C-alpha cells in the first residue's frame, strides 16, 4: 500500500520540529483573521458565525424541487439553499427541445424560465438566506436574471439578495462538459460579474476546484488550477471591464472537494488561503483585506461515495465533514450515502444534514479556530502541498495563464493522466477502498438502501407543460425583448448583455431562447445541437 500524499510526496512515520524548521508564525501562519490567513479569516471562528449547513436539491419538476427545499428547511437548513440544474438547463436548451424532453428534471432542476424559478421559490424567502443555484457556465446569466427579476416582482432590492448563482467558464473542461463554446461562456461570465459589481449585488460566482478534483485531479493540481482561474478571471475583470481588483476579487468563491485523506484535506485548504492572500497582495496589489480572503465552501466528495455497501458512506461523510469544519469553511454541503445511485432520498439527505449538525454541535470542533495549527505533520503537509501547487502554477503562468494552458491541452492531459493513475492505483490495490477493492462482499449480501426513483413520464410532462405554456406569454413583449437582445449581442464582446437579458427573462423568455438569440447574433446556430430552428424573425 502506498504511503504518500495524493500528489506523490512520501509520508514519514513521525513528524518533528525539524519538519517545520523555518516556519515563521507571523509571516507564514498569522493569527486567525490576520494575513496571510492560513488560519482563517475570523478571530473567533464559528463562535461568531456557524458555517452554512445545506444540502443540494433538484430533481423532477420545479414544484417537486420546491417541496424538497421546504423539507430541508424543516430539517434545520435555514442559512442557505442550494439547487442544482438538470442537464437540459445546463445545456441552455428547453425541455420541449427534442433532446431536452428525454432528460428534463432527471439530474436536477429544470430551470429553463422565470416561471420555473417562481415555482421553485414559492413560499421560500429570497433574502435572509444565501441563494445558491448550480449548473453550468452559460446559464449563469439566466440564473442571475431570475434572482433580479423575482426580487423586482417581490418588491425587494436585488442588492439585498446574497448567494451564488454564477459559474466559471472553466468548468466545461473538467468532466462536466456543456455544449456552449468557451468564448461565449467567458463573455457571459464577464458580463454577469461586471453587472453584480456595478449594481452592488452580493452574488458570487463559483470558480472552483471541485469539478477538477472530482474528475480525478490531485490536491496540488487542484490548488494550482483554481488559483490560475482566479488570476485569469480577476485579471480580465480589471483589464477588460475596468473594475478595481478589490471589487473583482469578491466575485469568485471556491468550492473545495474534501475527501477522506483527512490531514491532506486540511492542509490543502490552509495552503490555498495562504497562496491566494499572497497572490492578491503581491501580484494584484490588493488594498483591502477582503480581497485577500478567498471565500471557501466545502463539498464533501461525491467521488468517494461508493456504490458498494452504501452505508459505509455515512462514515466517510462524517470524516470529511469533520475535516471541512476543521478548515474553517463558510458553507458546507454533503454528498449523501446514496450519491452513487441517484439524487438524495429524504432519508439520505437527513442523514447527511444531521452529520453536519453532529459535527457542529457535538464534537467541539466549532469551539476553536484552526485546531490543527502547529501540528508538525499538518504544517509540513501545508508547506508541501503549497510547494507542489506553486510549481504547477508557475508552469501554467509560464504558458501564459490558464486559457493558454488549456488551448495547449496541458490541463486536460494533466487531469486525464491523474484520473488514469488513480484508477490503476485502485486496480492494483495500492490504495484501499473498503467494500470496493478491500473486504468486498458479494452483491447479493450487500444491504439495500432506499433509492430515489425516477418516473419516466416526468421529463415528458415537464416538456409538455413548457410547450403548452410558451404560446400563452405576451408574444409582442417577448418578441420586442428578444429583438433588443439580438441587436445588443452584435455590439461586441465588451457590451454588457445583462440588462437586456434581465428584460427578456422578465418577459418570460426561456433559456433556449435567450442563449439561442445570443448565439445567432454571434454567427452560431440558434440551437447548439442544430436540431430546431430559431422561432423568432430577427433583423
Amino acid at each position, binding site marked *: 500500500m502506498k504511503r504518500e500524499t495524493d500528489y506523490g510526496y512520501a509520508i514519514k512515520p513521525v513528524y518533528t520540529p525539524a519538519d517545520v524548521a523555518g516556519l515563521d508564525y507571523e509571516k507564514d501562519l498569522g493569527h486567525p483573521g490576520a494575513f496571510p490567513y492560513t488560519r482563517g479569516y475570523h478571530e473567533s471562528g464559528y463562535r461568531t458565525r456557524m458555517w452554512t449547513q445545506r444540502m443540494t436539491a433538484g430533481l423532477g419538476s420545479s414544484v417537486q424541487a420546491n417541496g424538497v427545499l421546504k423539507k430541508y428547511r424543516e430539517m434545520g437548513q435555514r442559512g442557505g439553499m442550494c439547487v442544482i440544474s438538470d442537464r437540459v438547463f445546463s445545456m441552455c436548451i428547453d425541455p420541449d427541445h427534442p433532446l431536452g424532453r428525454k432528460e428534463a428534471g*432527471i439530474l436536477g432542476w429544470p430551470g429553463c424560465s422565470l416561471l420555473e424559478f417562481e415555482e421553485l421559490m414559492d413560499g421560500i424567502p429570497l433574502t435572509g438566506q444565501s441563494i445558491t443555484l448550480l449548473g453550468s457556465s452559460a446559464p449563469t446569466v439566466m440564473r442571475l436574471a431570475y434572482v433580479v427579476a423575482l426580487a423586482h416582482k417581490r418588491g425587494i432590492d436585488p442588492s439585498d439578495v446574497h448567494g451564488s448563482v454564477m459559474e466559471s467558464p472553466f468548468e466545461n473542461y473538467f468532466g462536466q462538459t456543456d455544449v456552449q463554446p468557451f468564448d461565449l461562456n467567458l463573455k457571459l461570465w464577464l458580463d454577469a460579474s461586471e453587472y453584480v459589481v456595478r449594481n452592488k449585488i452580493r452574488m458570487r460566482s463559483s470558480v472552483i476546484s471541485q469539478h477538477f478534483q472530482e474528475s480525478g485531479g490531485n490536491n496540488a493540481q487542484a490548488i494550482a488550477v483554481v488559483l490560475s482561474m482566479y488570476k485569469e478571471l480577476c485579471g480580465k475583470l480589471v483589464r477588460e471591464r475596468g473594475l478595481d481588483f478589490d471589487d473583482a476579487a469578491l466575485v469568485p468563491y471556491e468550492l473545495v472537494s474534501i475527501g477522506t485523506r483527512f490531514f491532506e484535506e486540511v492542509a490543502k485548504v490552509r495552503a490555498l488561503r495562504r497562496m491566494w492572500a499572497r497572490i492578491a497582495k503581491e501580484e494584484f496589489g490588493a488594498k483591502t483585506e477582503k480581497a485577500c480572503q478567498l471565500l471557501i465552501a466545502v463539498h464533501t466528495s461525491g467521488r468517494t461515495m461508493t456504490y458498494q455497501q452504501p452505508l459505509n458512506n455515512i462514515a466517510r461523510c462524517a470524516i470529511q465533514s469533520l475535516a471541512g469544519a476543521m478548515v474553517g469553511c463558510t458553507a458546507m454541503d454533503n454528498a449523501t450515502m446514496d450519491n452513487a445511485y441517484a439524487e438524495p432520498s429524504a432519508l439520505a439527505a437527513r442523514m447527511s444534514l444531521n452529520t453536519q449538525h453532529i459535527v457542529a454541535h457535538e464534537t467541539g470542533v466549532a469551539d476553536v479556530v484552526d485546531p490543527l495549527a502547529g501540528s508538525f505533520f499538518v504544517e509540513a503537509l501545508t508547506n508541501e502541498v503549497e510547494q507542489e501547487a506553486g510549481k504547477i502554477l508557475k508552469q501554467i503562468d509560464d504558458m501564459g495563464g490558464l486559457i493558454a494552458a488549456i488551448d495547449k491541452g496541458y490541463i486536460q492531459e494533466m487531469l486525464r493522466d491523474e484520473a*488514469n493513475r488513480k484508477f490503476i492505483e485502485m486496480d492494483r490495490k495500492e490504495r484501499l477502498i473498503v467494500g470496493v477493492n478491500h473486504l468486498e462482499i458479494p452483491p447479493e449480501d450487500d444491504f439495500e438502501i432506499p433509492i430515489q426513483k425516477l418516473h419516466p413520464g416526468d421529463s415528458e410532462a415537464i416538456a409538455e407543460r413548457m410547450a403548452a405554456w410558451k404560446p400563452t406569454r405576451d408574444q409582442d413583449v417577448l418578441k420586442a425583448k428578444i429583438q433588443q437582445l439580438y441587436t445588443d449581442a452584435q455590439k461586441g464582446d465588451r457590451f454588457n448583455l445583462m440588462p437586456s437579458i434581465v428584460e427578456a427573462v422578465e418577459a418570460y423568455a426561456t433559456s433556449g431562447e435567450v442563449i439561442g438569440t445570443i448565439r445567432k447574433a454571434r454567427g452560431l446556430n440558434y440551437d447548439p*445541437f442544430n436540431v430546431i430552428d430559431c422561432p423568432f424573425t430577427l433583423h
Partner: protein
Amino acid sequence: MKAGNGIKVIVTMIGLDGHTTGGEVVSMILRDAGFEVVYLGVNQTPQMIIDAAIQEDVDVIGISSHASNYEQIEELVGLARANELDDMLIVVGGNIPREPAAQLLAKGVHKIFLPGSSGATIVDYLASESRGAKARAVA
C-alpha cells in the same frame, strides 16, 4: 499479441450526459490492451451512435453512463436491432442502480460493468465475447 487486437470498440456518452472521466479511463485501458477504440465523446444521440457503429463497423458499443438517462440506452438497443446489428455487443459502465440495471439487461444490453469493475474484468469480457474475438478464434 494483446487481448484486444482485432477488436473495435466505440466508447461514448449518451444523450446530454456530460461526465467524461469514466469513458476516458476505460478508453485508455482498452487501448493499452490492444483494442481499437473509437471515442465519440459527449452529446451523442442513440441514432448518432448507431450511425457511427455502422460506419466504423465496430464489434462493441460501450456506453459510459452517469446521468440516469436509461431510456436512451434502451432506444439504442432497439435501433441496433432494427439495423440487424445482432452480432455487435452493447455494454454499459456506470453507477446504475439494481432495478434499472436489471431492466437494461432484460431489454438486451449484453453486460453492465458496475462501479468497482476492474480493468481486467472489462478487457477479459470484451476479448472473449465480442464478434472480433470470435472471428479471431475461428481464424
